[in-house]
């Protein structure tokens, strides 16, 4: 095949950007041979991560998470509903993940992105597997009223590692969540707006003050790419499109494996690769835990 020779001859004469577009795999492999990536990160380092809480003022809980350029906005709204007959003292959490056309040139209006329902399902499975939310805490009046939590995550910029950023924003939004006060009014639950709290004495509040949810084991994740013998942590969308084998490991703070997701891919994962991915995720869990703690304490000071 003429191609390998062609790239060797042209690489010395071509501009870097042109070589990057025409021979993307060769471009990346030249970098990997030096144990570095095009954005000057070592192979096992994730991009800079920031979390900002309370991004949506009208929501009951919200957060904006950025991992490198990937940006996710999570917002939680709560509504009172009658619980189902099978679980009369449990609330419900409904998670939806949206990829509006703003996030990527590959997503056009009218045609939903392929990745969106997959990430949504992965998120709801992960959050229920990790036991972070105790559904019994969401019950108001046993058998009659419980909270329905609507979590919506909007992808504002899709630059790789969508699931990691979405999970981080969901976890931050739940940490920021304050359950609104409600009162019982003729057998119906009524939301109490802020101003009326002092005036109303005939309406008995069901919960006295806005409280936060107690969160169980908080899950954090890391997506890695497997390519030949290399493991790249936290890929960008360019890396994901060229080297297609992704492994997402979700661990919670007690190092329990919540999920190990590897949807096919040309590279087979042997035990050593799986162990390396889990070790990288453990480090990342510590970093993310610290970033989340700083963001929460930053909010409380205000």
């Amino acid at each position: 095949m003429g191609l390998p020779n062609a790239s060797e001859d042209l690489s010395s004469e071509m501009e870097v950007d042109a070589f990057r577009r025409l021979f993307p795999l060769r471009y990346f492999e030249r970098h990997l041979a030096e144990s570095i990536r095009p954005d000057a990160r070592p192979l096992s380092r994730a991009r800079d991560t920031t979390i900002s809480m309370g991004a949506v003022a009208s929501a009951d809980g919200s957060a904006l998470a950025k991992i490198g350029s990937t940006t996710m906005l999570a917002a939680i709204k709560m509504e009172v509903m009658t619980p189902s007959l099978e679980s009369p003292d449990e609330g419900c959490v409904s998670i939806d993940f949206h990829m509006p056309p703003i996030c990527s040139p590959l997503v056009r209006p009218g045609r939903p992105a392929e990745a969106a329902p997959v990430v949504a399902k992965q998120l709801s499975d992960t959050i229920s597997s990790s036991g972070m939310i105790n559904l019994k805490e969401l019950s108001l009046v046993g058998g009659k009223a419980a909270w329905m939590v609507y979590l919506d995550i909007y992808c504002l910029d899709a630059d790789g590692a969508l699931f990691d950023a979405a999970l981080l924003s969901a976890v931050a939004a739940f940490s920021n969540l304050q359950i609104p006060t409600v009162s019982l009014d003729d057998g119906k639950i009524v939301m109490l707006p802020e101003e009326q709290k002092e005036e109303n004495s005939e309406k008995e509040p069901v919960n006295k003050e806005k409280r936060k949810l107690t969160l169980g084991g908080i899950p954090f994740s890391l997506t890695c790419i497997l390519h030949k013998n290399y493991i790249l942590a936290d890929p960008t969308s360019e890396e994901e499109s060229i080297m297609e084998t992704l492994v997402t490991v979700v661990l919670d703070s007690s190092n329990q494996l919540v999920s190990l997701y590897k949807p096919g891919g040309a590279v087979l994962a042997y035990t050593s690769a799986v162990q390396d991915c889990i070790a990288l995720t453990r480090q990342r869990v510590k970093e993310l835990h610290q970033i989340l703690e700083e963001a929460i304490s930053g909010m409380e000071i205000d």
Partner: protein
Amino acid sequence: MEVDRADGRNPNQLRPLACSCSILHRAHGSASWSQGFRFIQTSHFYHFNLFVFTSKCYFCYWVGSGDTKVLAAVYGPKAGTKKNENPEKASIEVIWKPRTGQIGKPEKEYEIILKRTLQSICILTINPNTTTSVIIQVVHDDGALLPCAINAACAALVDAGIPMKHLAVAICCCSAESGYCILDPTKLEEQKMKGFAYLVFPNSILSVLPEGSSLVQGEPMEHGIITSVTHGAMSVDDYFHCLERGRAASAKLSDFLRRSLQSKLPGDLSKAE
């Protein structure tokens, strides 16, 4: 340490497997894969229904509750690829039809997982700019649905003659609270257990070359994971335990697949199972 299973199997025992190929005449390739027996339960069902629900005996539920059965059909290669696909390679399109209900997010997730798994086993450079459609129809679901579908899809691709590097064998492993690992759970067992993992491995190699040539990173090639999807939290050690059990079971599954596909070769007049 012994875990009692409802149907009396021991922890490492798979349900009885059945694979039939070329069952749909218009499809280029088709296969049905079932794990578990149906017929023993059907007679009880009919008997029960006849006396208790007499008005319903004509509509009685013949299919027993002890099996997972999936039907897979392959059409292709057809000309042209979809808009976002790479035209220099063959592309695979998966359509998943649930037994009842509308198509929702779980079905889309299964489609993507199956598509990526099949893309990694098919040789995509042979027929560029073509689309191969794999249609999965769930006939009955009693646990380990995704592994059953992957096995059925592989058998259907072989039946259609799509070029592949190797086959994929899929297995479901459950991890119990005591750290014990059981294989091929039923739906009730999946819901009761701490966590379960769907694992897909390449099939085992029968080769005249010596063992040493097939080792990669110190492990034989069939120990590599093609796909892994887990539900429920389990410890890292439990997961590796499940991996070992899954690998052992995949060797048995590979043998079964090889035997049932070999009996379909032309020139063999005996009836396939």
